[in-house]
């Protein structure tokens, strides 16, 4: 039984859509996504670049540019965040919902000391804190990340990338958020620092019961750090469930191909998925993966797959997994596709 089912979900996202308005048709970066995370649980969100992972993370906190429109439902601790008064939502960012980013090098204001970053953050949410208390809590958060107090008054450029990411995490954790969204927190860092950061995230969930949404494109990280995994393709979640089950018995061809594409010490040749991620302005009809899917059937280009339960208890959207009765006659025939012209592919 997964942690989400034991505890009530603290963050519940249902049928969320984020569309970016452009001059022509909108970009459907996130298109009908549902998931939930319980306290103390880590959900890994994986997918290729440009599949809408980061938009999903930011959309959850209402941190999208003005041209983006959000619909669906994001419930945090019983409260609906979509359509909430911006000021009210802003007050929740920090003490309730924290966010850490991919590129730590540019996430701290270069003109301000670390001390000022902490003071601003703490005073915004707890205006009555006195200087001593601000200092004590900041240093405590930094110490937890292995940053010594002697460096409190230094500027961001005096720290390495890994240290800056730990400072960013300390800045998020100093407010004790109940949900932490980590958007590729280790992508820009080397493996040693990556291991440190993953260790920190693991401690967090153990010690503070924090719910973590870990966005990554690295399946190794998911296997190591996550209880559950959601696989995202072209703005949709195609498979989600217990991380071990999904990895042992992937039900969706995309998940399977992703797993095949990972490299290890035994890797002798590179496996890759033919083609490129589709345009999110005009995604393929029906199942969005069908043009690249090795197992595509006639039905896959005709009807959007429905959510079913896979062999490992995971939820999956793929006709291979049924429901059988909904597949029209002849739908199980292999998909006949037009050869993609070389020029088009380029």
């Amino acid at each position, binding site marked *: 039984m997964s942690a989400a089912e034991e505890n009530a979900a603290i963050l519940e996202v249902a049928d969320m859509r984020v569309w970016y308005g452009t001059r022509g048709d909108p970009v459907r970066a996130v298109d009908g996504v549902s998931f939930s995370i319980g306290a103390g649980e880590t959900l890994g969100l994986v997918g290729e670049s440009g599949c809408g992972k980061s938009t999903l993370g930011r959309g959850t906190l209402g941190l999208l540019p003005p041209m983006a429109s959000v619909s669906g439902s994001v419930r945090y601790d019983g409260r609906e965040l979509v359509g909430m008064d911006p000021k009210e939502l802003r007050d929740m960012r920090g003490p309730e919902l924290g966010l850490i980013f991919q590129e730590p090098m540019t996430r701290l204001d270069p003109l301000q000391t670390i001390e000022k970053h902490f003071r601003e953050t703490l005073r*915004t949410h707890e205006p009555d804190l006195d200087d001593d208390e601000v200092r004590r809590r900041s240093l405590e958060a930094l110490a937890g990340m292995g940053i010594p107090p002697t460096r409190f008054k230094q500027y961001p450029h005096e720290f390495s990338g890994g240290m800056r990411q730990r400072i*960013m995490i300390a800045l998020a954790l100093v407010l004790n958020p109940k949900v932490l969204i980590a958007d590729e927190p280790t992508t820009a860092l080397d493996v040693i620092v990556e291991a440190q950061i993953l260790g920190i995230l693991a401690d967090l969930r153990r010690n503070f019961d924090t719910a973590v949404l870990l966005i990554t494109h690295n399946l190794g990280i998911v296997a190591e750090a996550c209880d559950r995994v959601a696989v995202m393709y072209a703005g949709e979640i195609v498979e989600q469930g217990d991380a071990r089950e999904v990895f042992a018995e992937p039900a969706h061809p995309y998940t399977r191909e992703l797993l095949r594409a990972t490299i290890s010490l035994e890797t002798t040749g590179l496996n890759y998925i033919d083609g490129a991620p589709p345009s999110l302005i005009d995604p393929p009809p029906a199942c969005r993966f069908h043009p690249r899917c090795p197992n595509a059937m006639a039905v896959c280009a005709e009807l959007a797959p429905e959510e079913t339960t896979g062999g490992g208890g995971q939820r999956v959207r793929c006709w291979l997994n049924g429901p059988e009765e909904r597949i029209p006659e002849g739908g199980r025939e292999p998909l006949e596709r037009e050869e993609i012209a070389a020029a088009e592919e380029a």
Partner: protein
Amino acid sequence: MSRGGGLRTYVLTRVLLAIPTVFILVTMVFLLMRVAPGDPITAALGAKLPAKELEKRKKEAGYDRPIADQYVEYLGQVVTLDLGESVTDNRSVKSIIVENGSATLELTLAAFSITLLVGIPIGLLAGRFRDGPIDVGGRLFAIVIYAFPVFFLGFLAQLLASKVGWPTSGRASPIVDFDLDKISYFYVLDSLIAGDWNAFWDVLQHLFLPALVLGLTISGVMIRLVRVNLMQTLRGDYVEAARARGISERRVVINHAFRNALVPVITVAGLQFAILLSGAVLTEETFNWPGIGSELIRYLDERDYIAVQGIVVVFAIAVVFVSLLIDLVNAFIDPRVRYR
């Protein structure tokens, strides 16, 4: 702390580096003046005096000596700030610089204050509320004001000013100018020192029009510069990160975006200031302002090399000084600008 140490080293290095820069500039000015055909005396007075008289004057001025001797003497002059006398009207170069230079500096300071007062707020508002009324109006204003030639804008301003009876040319009314005790040669300052309020008002009125025209012209550039930098920092990663910590939009904009946007502005603004010091000739001509730019043009016309040499040396030093100042201000604001 490392900050204080780094800053001290930086300031010291920058100041020391300015010395060879000035030296090179001063030498180049000297060489340029010697490369030009003929000597200063012949150039300025060649057609006006008999050959014998010219020879006599050349000898007096020391132009028959080896060039190295002349160079050493010239360096001595620069160091003691005694830059000789103009050939054509026997004015000491020092007094040209003090009297006309102060006029230019006074005008430049006033104009630049207007540039900053207009350019920074409008630029910030335009960048913050992109495509809003202030942005559209500000952009239009910036282009139009920058496209207007100064003399046209100047005439327009003079026309309007004359309708309300404000003075349209010169630094002060003749009587005020005659009576004023010139101590600093900044008329605004001198009239204040004298405690003469009528003179102060008169001087201020005279200063207002050229400063406004010059200041507004440059403010166009400033608006666009501030605007584009703010738009960039507002998209910055640290701005998004601050929003993700729930910092109020006002604080995000003022504390993070504005401050970072002003760093590159300081550099360009400083260079604009340096250009203004030597390049406000059109404004000076339009308003009959006795500045050093128009004086330089006059001496160039008369081929008075000594006066030109002196004025150019001072310009060069001023530009070095201003860029040193920019570097120091930047170092105080931006902790990354340090030597380690």
